C-alpha cells in the first residue's frame, strides 16, 4: 500500500465535482410512477421482485405437494412439475434475488450511504426499472400461452430445452423465457452501470473507498461482476433463440427425435453449458456478495462493535468476485467435458474457500465480546452466518470431482444450493428489510410478528433442507416428478418427503405474516425517528426521515470517519456517525493490508 494518510486533514478537496442537477418531478406521475428518484425506483424494484418471489414460492409449494404426496394432486403431471421447477428456479435466481439486491437495495442504499443526492444518471436508472418490469411481464406471460412456460429446468440445457417432449420446447415457453432474459439483461445493464459509476465517481467529500460501508462494497462488486457475467447469458440466449426460431445448430448435435432424425448437425450442447455457467457461477456471488456486505453492517451495528478486519473484508470481497469468474465448470463435472478441466476447476473452487473463510471468521470476531442486541435484523444476520457456513461446507463436497460425481443430480445438490444461495441470501434480505424499513417508511416493523416470522423461517428452512442432504446421500435424484417405483428408495424416504412438504407449507405461510407486517406497519408501526438503531452510516443521518428527493437538504454530508465507530472509548455516545467531526480514530489501523 502506498502511504496515503487516511486521516489527514491537510488537503481540503476542492469542490471540483459537479453537483447533481436533479430532475424535479412536476406531477404525481413523474413523482411516484415514472420517477427518476433512486429511492422510489428502489421501492418499485423491491415490490415487483417480492411479488415475483411470492409467485415462485407458490410454485415451490406445488412441487413439494407433488413430491410429498405423489399422485394425490392430479393437476400436477410431469410436464407441469418441470414447468414449476424451471420457473421457480429462474424467477428466484434472476428476477427476485438479483433484482432485489442490486435493483432494490442498490438503488436505495448506494446514494444514501455514500452521500450522493441520487444515482449519476437518474433517467437511465428509471428505464432500468421499466425494462425489468417488461422482462417480468414477458416471463409471467408464458404461463398463459399455448403449451405453458418452458419446462427445460432452470439451467435451460439444450438440446432438450428446444425439442419436442419438453414442455414449451416447441411452443412459446422457451421463446418467452429467452426473450425475457435478454430484456432483463438490457435493463440490468442500465442499472448496473449507474450503481458502479455512482460508487466510483459520486461519493461525498471525505468518503474514500476504504471508508465505505461494506454494504456498498458488496453491492458495488456484485454490480460490476454482473456487468461482466450477464453478457455470457445474453449470448447463450441469443444463440438458443436462433436454434429454436431459425433452425440453426449452435447447440444442436445430429440427433434423433421421436424416431426421426432431426435436420440439425454439428452443434455443441457443451458450449451452452459453458456460456450458461460462465454467467451462472458469478451469479451465485452476485447474490452472495451484497448479502455479505449487508450482514457485515447488520452485525456491526447490532453488536455495537466495529467490524473486525475491515480491509481484509474488502479484499476478500474483491478476491471472491475475481475468483468466481474462473470456477464455472465445477457445475459441469459430469457433463462430458475434458476431465483435466475438472482438476483445474476443483482447485480454483476450493481456493474460494479461503477468502470466504476470512469473512466468516471476521464476522465471528466482530461478535466476540460484542454487546449483542438480539433484535429481528440481528437474528436474521446470525442465522445467515450459520446457514452460510452450512451451505458452504457442502460446497466443499461438491467442489471435489470424485465426491461430486456420485452426488451430482441428487437432492444433495438441491439442499446445498438452497442453503447457500436460497435460504442464506433470503435471510439477509429479511434482516435488511427489518433493518432499513424504518428509514424507508419512518416506522418500525412489528417486533412480535418479526420474531415469529424469523423463528418459523429459520427453523423451518433447516427442517426442509437438512433432510434433503440425507435423501441425496441415499441417491434420490433431483428433478424427478415421481420416485415411487425405484427399488433403492426406502419407505422412510417417502415419509421424509411428506414431512418436508408439510414444513414447506408452514414456512411459506409464515411469509404471509411478513407481508402483512410490511403493510400493517406502514400505518400502525411505532414511530422510528431518524436513527432507531443508533447506526453510524450516512443513510441514518439524513435531515428528514424518510429522506426526501435529493436526500440531504441543502448541504451534502462531509465524511470524517469510517463506518464502524461503535463503542469508541471516551466518546459521549456509543457510536460516532460517519459525518461527525472530531478528534477520534478516523480509520482502522492499516496494519492488515
Amino acid at each position, binding site marked *: 500500500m*502506498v502511504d*496515503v*494518510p*487516511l*486521516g*489527514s*486533514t*491537510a*488537503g481540503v*478537496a476542492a469542490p*471540483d*465535482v*459537479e453537483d447533481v442537477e436533479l*430532475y424535479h418531478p412536476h406531477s404525481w406521475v413523474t413523482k411516484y410512477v415514472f420517477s427518476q428518484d433512486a429511492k422510489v425506483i428502489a421501492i418499485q424494484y423491491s415490490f415487483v421482485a417480492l411479488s415475483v418471489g411470492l409467485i415462485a414460492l407458490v410454485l415451490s409449494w406445488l412441487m413439494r405437494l407433488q413430491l410429498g404426496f405423489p399422485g394425490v394432486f392430479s393437476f400436477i403431471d410431469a410436464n407441469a412439475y418441470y414447468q414449476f421447477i424451471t420457473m421457480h428456479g429462474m424467477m428466484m435466481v434472476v428476477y427476485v434475488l438479483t433484482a432485489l439486491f442490486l435493483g432494490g437495495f442498490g438503488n436505495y442504499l448506494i446514494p444514501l450511504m455514500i452521500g450522493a443526492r441520487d444515482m*449519476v*444518471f437518474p*433517467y437511465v436508472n428509471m428505464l432500468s426499472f421499466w425494462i425489468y418490469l417488461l422482462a417480468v411481464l414477458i416471463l409471467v406471460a408464458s404461463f398463459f400461452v399455448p403449451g405453458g412456460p418452458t419446462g427445460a429446468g432452470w439451467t435451460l440445457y439444450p438440446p432438450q430445452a428446444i425439442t419436442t417432449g419438453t414442455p414449451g420446447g416447441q411452443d412459446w415457453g422457451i421463446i418467452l423465457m429467452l426473450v425475457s432474459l435478454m430484456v432483463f439483461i438490457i435493463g440490468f*445493464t442500465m442499472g448496473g*452501470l*449507474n450503481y458502479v*459509476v455512482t460508487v*466510483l*465517481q*459520486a*461519493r*461525498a*467529500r*471525505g*468518503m*474514500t*473507498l476504504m471508508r465505505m460501508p461494506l454494504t456498498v462494497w458488496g453491492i458495488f462488486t456484485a454490480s460490476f461482476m454482473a*456487468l*461482466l457475467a450477464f*453478457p*455470457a447469458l445474453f*449470448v*447463450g440466449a*441469443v*444463440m438458443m433463440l*436462433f436454434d429454436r426460431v*431459425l*433452425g*440453426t*445448430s*449452435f447447440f444442436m448435435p*445430429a440427433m434423433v427425435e421421436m424416431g426421426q432424425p432431426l*435436420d440439425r*448437425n*454439428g*452443434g*455443441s450442447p457443451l*458450449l451452452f453449458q*459453458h456460456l450458461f455457467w*460462465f454467467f451462472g457461477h458469478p451469479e451465485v456471488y452476485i447474490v452472495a456478495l451484497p448479502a455479505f456486505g449487508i450482514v457485515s453492517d447488520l452485525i456491526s451495528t447490532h453488536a455495537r462493535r466495529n467490524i473486525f478486519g475491515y480491509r481484509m473484508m474488502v479484499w476478500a470481497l474483491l478476491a471472491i468476485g475475481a475468483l468466481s469468474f474462473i470456477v464455472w465448470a465445477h457445475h459441469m463435472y459430469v457433463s462430458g467435458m475434458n476431465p483435466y478441466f475438472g482438476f483445474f476447476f476443483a482447485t480454483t473452487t476450493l481456493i474460494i474457500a479461503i477468502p470466504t473463510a476470512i469473512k466468516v471468521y471476521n464476522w465471528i470476531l466482530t461478535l466476540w465480546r460484542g454487546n449483542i442486541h438480539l433484535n429481528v435484523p440481528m437474528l436474521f444476520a446470525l442465522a445467515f452466518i450459520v446457514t452460510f457456513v452450512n451451505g458452504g461446507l457442502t460446497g466443499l463436497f461438491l467442489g471435489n470431482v470424485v465426491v461430486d460425481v456420485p452426488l451430482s443430480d441428487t437432492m444433495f445438490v438441491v439442499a446445498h444450493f438452497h442453503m447457500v444461495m436460497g435460504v442464506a441470501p433470503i435471510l439477509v434480505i429479511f434482516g435488511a428489510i427489518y433493518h432499513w424499513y424504518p428509514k424507508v417508511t419512518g416506522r418500525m416493523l412489528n417486533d412480535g410478528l418479526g420474531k415469529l416470522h424469523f423463528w418459523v423461517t429459520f427453523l423451518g428452512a433447516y427442517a426442509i433442507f437438512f433432510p434433503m442432504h440425507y435423501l441425496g446421500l441415499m441417491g434420490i435424484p433431483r428433478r424427478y416428478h415421481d420416485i415411487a417405483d425405484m427399488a433403492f428408495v426406502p419407505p422412510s424416504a417417502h415419509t421424509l418427503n411428506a414431512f418436508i412438504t408439510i414444513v414447506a407449507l408452514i414456512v411459506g405461510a409464515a411469509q404471509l405474516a411478513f407481508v402483512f407486517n410490511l403493510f400493517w406497519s406502514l400505518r400502525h408501526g411505532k414511530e422510528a425517528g431518524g436513527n432507531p438503531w443508533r447506526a453510524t452510516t450516512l443513510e441514518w443521518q439524513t435531515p428528514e426521515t424518510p429522506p426526501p428527493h435529493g436526500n440531504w437538504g441543502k*448541504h451534502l454530508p*462531509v*465524511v470524517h*470517519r469510517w463506518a464502524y465507530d461503535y463503542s469508541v472509548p471516551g466518546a459521549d455516545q456509543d457510536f460516532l456517525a460517519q459525518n461527525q*467531526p472530531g478528534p477520534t480514530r*478516523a480509520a482502522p489501523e492499516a496494519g492488515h493490508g
Partner: protein
Amino acid sequence: MTEQVVTSTHYTSDASGLRSIAADFSSDRQAFRNVSWGKAMMWIFLLSDTFVFSCFLISYMTARMSTTVPWPNASEVFALTIGGTTLPLILIAIMTFVLISSSGTMAMAVNFAYRRDRRKTAVLMLVTALLGAAFVGMQAFEWSKLIHEGVRPWSNPWGAAQFGSSFFMITGFHGTHVSFGVLFLLIVARKVWRGDYDHEKRGFFTSRRGNYEAVEIMGLYWHFVDLVWVFIFAFFYLW
C-alpha cells in the same frame, strides 16, 4: 454540519505511475480523477460489451472447431467478380477501409469539438455517420449476395451450417452496433450544429446540461465498434 474540517486525502501532483493510481483510488469522491460520469459510464459499458463480443467470437470459434463438416473457404465465399476477375475479400477490404476511415473523421470531430468549432465538428460527425451508413449498406449488399447464393442461417451450399449462422449472427450484431452509432452520431451532430453544447442546453429526457464532451463519449463508442470489427475481420474473414 461543519464544513471546515475535511479529511480528504491530500494530492500531490508529482505522484506518477502506480503511486498515482493508488492515490486516485484512495481519494474521496472520485476513483478516476477528472473523469466525468458520462465518460466513466461509457468505458464501463464498453467493458461489458467487450464481454458480449468475446462470447460471440469464442462461441463461433468453438462451433467452427467442433463441427464435423468442413468449413467453407473464406477467400472463395467472400470473393467478388469484378470485370471478369475474381478478387478475394475485395468487398470486405473496402468495408474495413471505410470503417477505419470513419474512426479518423470521428477523432477529428472530437478535436474540433474541444476547440468549440461547431461547424467543423458537426460536418465531421456527419461524414462519420455517412461512412458508417456506407459500411452498413455494403454489409447489406454482402448479406444479400450471400443469401442469393443460398446461404441461410441453417444451411449453406459449401459446408458447415454453422458458417451461415455465425456469420449472420455476429456481423448482424456488429452491424446493429454500427447502425445505433450512426443514429446517435446524427443526434449528437444535430445538437452540436444547433449550438446546444455552447449554451449547455438541457437534454429532452434527462434534463441534464449537455457539453462538448458528448462528442468524445460518442467517439469512444465509435472507436470501440471499429476495434471490434478488426477482430471480426481477422477471425471470420482471414481465418
